């Protein structure tokens, strides 16, 4: 199997050791085409919509959502203390770095191109991606897709362009999976959204190589509100990957995305995330998918960065025989809280789902699993399995599990397993007795713990993830 690739992965691991600040945490000088004022109100919303030249229905949608955002109280669950520290008036809601999006990297300003070079995006594009979208602050500054994919009728655009070029499909599906009123942050996103990806895969088309978007926040106190909508038409298949980083600043930024997936009959969507925001980013994201008859949706969700993440990818199994899988991993280091989880709604017969959650808490980091499994009365012969695995490193590390199960019929099979473990002395001894230093041994054990997740990633991302974990594992154990 992938032994050679793994070897490569290990070799790369051995040579790494930079910290976040030098590798991802740098920032570019800001000299943008447009930088709005701090704070959000109807004027700001109108300005965003006008600058984008949107149809009126979208502008109305934004205003309506803003009212919902302003009216809704902050969530009274999760990490309310950290949530309370968000200063919505101090955030820039819209920054347009350049006037026109680039179709080739040569069209992108040198300093932005350099940033994405440092993040390895053009390299990855050349080697193993079918299309790339690179968002910088509020807008996608570079977007490209291979010609052979275009010829198959696959649409992969940034969301702003999609609204201009495919208004019919956007209007049909926008906000249908996650309505504005779903939660406060979904409302905020709907009001202020900018950028994000739009994908439409025609019936029967198999997108054989992944499409990727990379989200970069550069400015301090930035609010990034990308909006993503993926529609896989009957019998089609697509794998979409997103990554994200930001500079290290002393004050906070907000990332609040909305991602809607629609897998029509027999379609397959896999959505992979490697979230590596800087430690001063609030990452409050709503992700939800609808899986129709015999469709499959998989969320592969890795959370390494951010100060506070609250994210619970959801799958609504609305068609008979639909399948859902949510595989998530969270790493909570110093002062981090990863409040992650999964939701599955079984609303049709013979549906099945599997949730696998792995979390690592180190030092005073806190990882929470918050999950919901709902099985409606009509969802007979459905199967659910939930497995939560938490690994604690250090005495101050914390892990919580908040599983909710609402099961309204008896003809279902439900399995639930939760485990909390520590890196065992005995395992460390076994590995050190073979010559590995204690740090290397601990890292190997942690990588092993995450293996069920990393093995689902394309090799390049597995390398990257292990690299990130190595960075996180450096330094003293509390």
């Amino acid at each position: 199997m992938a032994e050679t690739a793994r070897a490569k992965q290990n070799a790369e691991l051995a040579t790494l050791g930079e910290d976040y600040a030098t590798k991802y945490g740098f920032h570019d000088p800001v000299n943008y085409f447009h930088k709005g004022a701090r704070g959000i109100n109807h004027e700001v919303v109108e300005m965003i919509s006008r600058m984008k030249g949107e149809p009126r229905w979208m502008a109305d949608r934004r205003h309506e959502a803003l009212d919902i955002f302003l009216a809704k109280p902050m969530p009274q669950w999760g990490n309310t203390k950290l949530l309370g520290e968000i200063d919505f008036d101090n955030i820039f809601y819209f920054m347009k770095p350049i006037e026109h999006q680039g179709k080739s990297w040569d069209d992108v300003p040198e300093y932005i191109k350099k940033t994405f070079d440092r993040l390895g995006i053009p390299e990855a594009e050349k080697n193993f991606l079918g299309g790339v979208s690179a968002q910088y602050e509020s807008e996608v500054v570079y977007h490209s897709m291979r010609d052979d994919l275009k010829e198959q009728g696959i649409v992969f655009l940034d969301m702003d362009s999609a609204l201009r070029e495919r208004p019919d499909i956007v209007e049909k599906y926008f906000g249908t999976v996650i309505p504005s009123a779903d939660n406060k942050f979904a409302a905020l996103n709907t009001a202020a959204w900018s950028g994000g990806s739009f994908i439409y895969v025609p019936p029967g088309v198999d997108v054989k190589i992944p499409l990727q978007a990379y989200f970069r926040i550069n400015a301090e106190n930035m609010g990034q509100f990308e909006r993503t909508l993926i529609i896989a038409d009957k019998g089609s298949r697509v794998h979409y990957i997103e990554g994200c980083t930001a500079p290290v600043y002393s004050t906070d930024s907000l990332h609040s995305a909305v991602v809607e997936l629609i897998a029509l009959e027999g379609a397959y969507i896999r959505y992979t995330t490697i979230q590596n925001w800087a430690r001063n980013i609030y990452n409050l994201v709503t992700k939800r998918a609808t899986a129709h008859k015999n469709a499959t949706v998989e969320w592969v969700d890795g959370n390494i960065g951010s100060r506070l993440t609250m994210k619970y990818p959801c799958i609504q199994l609305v068609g008979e025989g639909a399948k859902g899988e949510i595989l998530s991993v969270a790493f909570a280091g110093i002062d981090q809280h990863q409040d992650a989880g999964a939701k599955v709604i079984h609303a049709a017969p013979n549906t099945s789902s599997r949730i696998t959650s792995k979390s690592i808490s180190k030092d005073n980091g806190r990882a929470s699993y918050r999950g919901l499994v709902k099985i409606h009365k009509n969802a007979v012969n459905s199967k659910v399995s939930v497995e939560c695995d938490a690994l604690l490193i250090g005495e101050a590390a914390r892990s919580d599990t908040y599983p909710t199960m609402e099961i309204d019929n008896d003809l279902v099979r439900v399995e639930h397993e939760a485990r909390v473990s520590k890196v065992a002395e005995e395992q460390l001894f076994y590995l050190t007795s073979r010559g590995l230093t204690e740090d290397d041994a601990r890292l190997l054990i942690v990588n092993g713990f995450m293996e069920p997740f990393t093995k689902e990633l394309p090799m390049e991302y597995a390398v990257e993830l292990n690299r990130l974990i190595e960075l996180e594992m450096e330094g003293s154990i509390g």
Partner: protein
Amino acid sequence: MADKTPLFDLRDIHVEVESKEVVSGVSLTVYRGEVHAIMGPNGSGKSSLSNALMGHPNYRVTAGEAYLDGRNLLEMEADERSRSGLFLAFQYPLAIPGVTVANFMRAAVQSHRGKGADMTDFRKVFTGKMADLNIDREFAARYLNEGFSGGEKKRIEILQMAMLNPKMALLDETDSGLDIDALKTVAEGINRYHTEENGLLLVTHYQRLLNYVKPDHVHVMSRGKLVKSGGPELALELEERGYDWLVGTAPETAQV
């Protein structure tokens, strides 16, 4: 045996586990090329001695000295002991979920060669040694000891020994849990590894491994002490007579 300086030298080793003394003054000298066997009933302190020498944090050496090739083992952490050429094949090797045998082995070999050292020959050497031990190639991609049978675990331990090529190997009950074919394969592996340059210490309850790996010296351990030493014939005598006749001769173990 040409070299007169000891390869492995234990002087009056005492070991405590949870404040209880389990090894009470073991002295033993192994020269290059020699095979020693420590035999004894369960609970005699054999495994405790092996674990303590490898540096297990729960086994505290409270007195005595241990040298490998003139280097003081007791001043080293477990990983340094390994890199200095000591190896312990465990009686009950642990599973490490998610870490493949190949990945683990590569990390171990890399640690011995040094970070950044050339590893281009690793794959070839590794698959060669696996073939020598009749280990199916699919094991390379399996998670270390996870779901392995007792015999498979023991073979993987010997594979690790063969890969790391230690100066001195302690094999703790390596024969237990093996059927006769597996025993022969493992014994062949041990014999293939053993040269005039390295030393072996077999820790075992039964003498059946000694039919295949011939010891130069046999020691009997009871209540934390070596109570009798002799040649290979001693193992046969133990097989015939059991341990009772010797165990009775052990002086009382000092209780701390």
